[in-house]
């Protein structure tokens, strides 16, 4: 990777994710995650040189520029501090911004931290309707559910995917989440349970959709010197890739589309960039764990295919065969993923944090044996902002 300095994750912190956390304020949640990450890294607040704050739309919790309120709670006063916001991709982009802080050589240690209280709003999907163009799209009842339902219908038409195949993804995720103490939704459910859950927007049923979660996450990034000093088993950031596409979904369908909507084809470019930097030529063979941003049961297949784990249309068969189960060919979302916890402003960071824990061998009951490389993704806007991060046990 042609950066000036090595960058590694040396500490990870997450709170439990729940619908409501009435006993803590927003800033206290952020502090809990920051403290946990610092403790994990064996650092104290004075060891941190700069802070990157991860927070998506503040309308979810009702305080504009809420990160400024959190400054004292995450021990940022007197230090360089900035907030990153790329919608649902925020946590992934914040990690990339934190990476730039350290890779530039300007800072030795950076705390990337954020929190969200999505359930503080009475209607998150109304706020998410307001992300669309005022003149053309507000009135179409577009929100993140209906938006991705449309692209899922297109994918199903192209590849013959069934609702039961998506239901299997939910079953696997909820089962994986049983081993993750932070996960919001978890349990041994059946395909039949998913199929019988209330219809929301075809082909989605309630269980195909992530929860609205409250919680916080943080990671500590460090340069080579600080990594050596404080962490015997870091997760090196070996590859980063990001891509922004058009907001208009109609421009992403048809023979002349630059990036096909149903394929989440932005990941072809972002994934290839990250893999190239990380020296990954065969993702399925060289990567053991992926933590995908999957707020819907249909979000995994196109990502896996566009990043290059399998060919277009193959992921559903591999999923049916158990190839993505815990400890199988490729462990997909051993944490339970976004389907089980979605604190939007930090979800992308949680993906990175959970991937880093796997590389660092600290994933507890979720741990997959022998993880040398793990990949994390994030998606924001109208599936238009994507980020991809590859973490490795060895620096490339």
């Amino acid at each position, binding site marked *: 990777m042609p950066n000036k300095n090595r960058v590694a994750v040396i500490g990870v912190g997450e709170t439990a994710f729940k619908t409501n956390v009435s006993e803590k304020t927003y800033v206290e949640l952020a502090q809990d995650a920051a403290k946990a990450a610092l403790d994990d890294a064996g650092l104290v607040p004075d060891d941190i040189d700069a802070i990157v704050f991860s927070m998506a739309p503040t309308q979810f919790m009702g305080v504009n520029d809420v990160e400024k309120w959190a400054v004292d709670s995450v021990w940022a006063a007197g230090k360089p501090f900035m907030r990153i916001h790329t919608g649902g991709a925020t946590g992934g982009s914040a990690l990339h911004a934190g990476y730039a802080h350290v890779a530039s050589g300007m800072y030795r240690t950076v705390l990337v931290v954020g929190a969200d209280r999505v359930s503080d709003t009475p209607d998150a999907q109304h706020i998410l309707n307001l992300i669309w163009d005022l003149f053309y799209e507000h009135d179409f009842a577009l929100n993140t559910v209906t938006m991705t339902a449309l692209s899922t219908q297109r994918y199903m038409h192209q590849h013959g995917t069934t609702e039961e195949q998506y239901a299997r993804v939910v079953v696997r995720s909820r089962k994986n989440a049983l081993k993750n103490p932070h996960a919001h939704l978890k349990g041994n459910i059946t395909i039949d349970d998913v199929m019988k859950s209330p219809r929301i927007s075809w082909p989605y049923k309630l269980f195909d959709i992530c929860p609205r979660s409250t919680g916080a996450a943080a990671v500590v990034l460090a340069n080579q010197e600080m990594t050596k000093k404080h962490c015997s088993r870091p997760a090196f950031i070996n590859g980063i890739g990001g891509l*922004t596409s058009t907001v208009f979904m109609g421009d992403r369908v048809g023979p002349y589309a630059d990036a096909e909507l149903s394929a989440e084809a932005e990941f072809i470019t972002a994934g290839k960039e990250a893999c190239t930097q990380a020296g990954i030529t065969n993702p399925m063979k060289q990567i053991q764990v992926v933590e995908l941003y999957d707020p819907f049961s249909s979000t995994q297949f196109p990502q896996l295919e566009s990043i290059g784990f399998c060919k277009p249309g193959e992921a559903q068969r591999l999923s049916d065969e158990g190839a993505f189960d815990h400890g199988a060919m490729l462990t997909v979302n051993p944490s339970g993923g976004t389907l089980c916890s979605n604190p939007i402003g930090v979800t992308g960071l949680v993906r990175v944090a959970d991937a880093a824990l796997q590389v660092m061998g600290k994933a507890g009951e979720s741990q997959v044996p022998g993880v040398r490389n793990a990949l994390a993704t994030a998606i924001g*806007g109208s599936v238009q902002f994507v980020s991809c991060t590859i973490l490795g046990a060895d620096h490339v």
Partner: protein
Amino acid sequence: MDTYVLGLAMHPPAVWVANKRLEEMVFDTAKAALDDARIDRQQLDHISIAGCDELDGRSISSMLLSAPAGAYLKDEIKTTDSGLIGFCLEAMRIESGRYHLGLLSSWNKSSTAPLEDVMRMRCEPFFTRPIGLNMSIADGLFAQSVSYTYKISAADLSNAVVESYKRAEKNPRGMRASVPSASEIDASPYVAAPLRKIQQAPVTDGGVSMVICSGDWLNKHPGSKPLAKLSGLAWRIDEYQLGSERLGSLNGFKETFKRATSMTDFGQTQLNVVELDSQTAFHDVAFRRALDLSAGCEVSPSGGPFAQNPYFCSGLVQAAEAVLQVSGRAGAVQVKNAKRAAAHGCHGFAQQGNAVAVFEGV
């Protein structure tokens, strides 16, 4: 540092840019910056954006604005603090060695947003929101505090207003508002004692874009001549609560300046030009007194926010003016032999955050 400004553009300011959507403002400014740098969008390897959802009136404003800002199918990240913090992000991405040619854009069309309501909603819900704190009141508290610390008199403030508008009147990129008379200053109403309305820089619509590149990129493109080299960069946030120490000491402002200038081969005293993000006359007087500048250093020759004040990206406007100074392109407000210029930006209630960028002519 090994980061350069290759081209820039500023959207003509107005109280209300009525004939364009925000998307059009951003596109026009980004395109003008690319043209200034003689760069095609396809050459860019990344984009940085600085925007504010709440001032734009949207939940994820970059969904609609990333494409006009040149980000279609590019690696793009947005920060929400201020335009000058966007510059800090962009510079670090270049300094990381991972990126080499980028476009940074920031904007403000607060004519379409209730600015004070947006600012009031920045207050946390338990203590500061119930008492009705907003931007003007926060600036009023700041004014009280720095008046005491820096011994600012009514005459100092009147002089600052007149001199700011005099400089701003000459700036071809500003609003060119007329200089207020003594009677207008005296008759101006209080917005939050001791702050009077005429002492506030009027907020405008506007936007800035800059093309930024690495030294490596320049070596591979010897035909391209940068406008300026980035020599120093620092930013910092201070505590959220508006205590007298935070308000009156200007510790964040002074320390940020010190850190940025300490990265250069010269010091604060060797600066030829400083462009300050002085949102009020109180800021202007206090900032000047807090800095250790040489007698020959020109402070805010552009008129600063009194020339144009697209609030969210005002700091980036100061950076653009500083770059124009060291590249000899500042026009009627050009300072003779300006080789080293610093730009300042602040954000948050009563300058919770400060950023400083130092540029040298190339």
